């Protein structure tokens, strides 16, 4: 009878920190780890976003505070990062849902959808960034 805690089972470790430098991740792997990183980032900045949301809503005066606060370049950089994080998380998430429904599972289609989930958010974020920094 198989025992869940028997000691003679071979242990397969995940890659460690030291392997990260020379471990070549496939495109889908990059999308996957960025999905995690973007999620973690948005989690950490949640109170910051709620604070901005509060300032933008509470009153005419706080709206002015919101506007002057978000006009600093470093706040814009943070916001642009969060815009990218949201877009990447959204696109990678939609790709996930398709795969849950057994689409895009072949090597080629998986690679193409990974490329799309990686590139489209960057392109849209660049356009949003151009708007944010007043290019148009």
């Amino acid at each position, binding site marked *: 009878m198989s025992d*869940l805690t028997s000691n003679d089972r071979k242990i397969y470790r995940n890659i460690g920190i030291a392997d990260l430098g020379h471990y070549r991740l496939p495109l889908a792997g990059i999308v996957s780890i960025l999905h995690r990183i973007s*999620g*973690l980032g948005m*989690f950490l900045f*949640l109170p910051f976003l*709620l604070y901005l949301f509060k300032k*933008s*809503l509470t009153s005419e005066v706080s709206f002015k505070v919101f506007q002057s606060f978000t006009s600093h370049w470093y706040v814009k950089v943070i916001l642009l990062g969060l815009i990218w994080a949201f877009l990447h998380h959204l696109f990678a998430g939609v790709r996930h849902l398709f795969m849950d429904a057994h689409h895009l599972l072949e090597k080629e289609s998986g690679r193409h959808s990974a490329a799309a989930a990686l590139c489209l958010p960057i392109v849209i974020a660049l356009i949003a960034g151009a708007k944010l920094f007043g290019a148009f």
Partner: protein
Amino acid sequence: MSTSSNIGAKRLVVGAHYGLADWLAQRFTAVVMACYSVVLLGVFFWMHDFTYDGWAGLFAMQWLKVSTFVVLLSLFYHVWVGMRDIWMDYVKPASLRMVFQSVTIVWLLGCAGYALQILWSV
């Protein structure tokens, strides 16, 4: 040795809801948030009033206020499942993991209270 063959190390880890409910809830809340994002962007650009009055006017509408709150609750649940996954994958000592998970819960409950206060002050 216990008389039962289904407890402790001998437990059969099959057939029950081992993470299925959370997995499904994570997907469901994701769809809710994605739909809301599209609707909010649509309403925002359709109203075409990018002043304070236009912005606050949006969230003064009861339906948007309530749906925003529902979406935020979905967000917090979604974040809980995701963050718990991250802690389970990368934080191996059980005691440290419990600290991270506890802080995550407190953090999210705090955010939920803050969101409630913000939405109903408009």
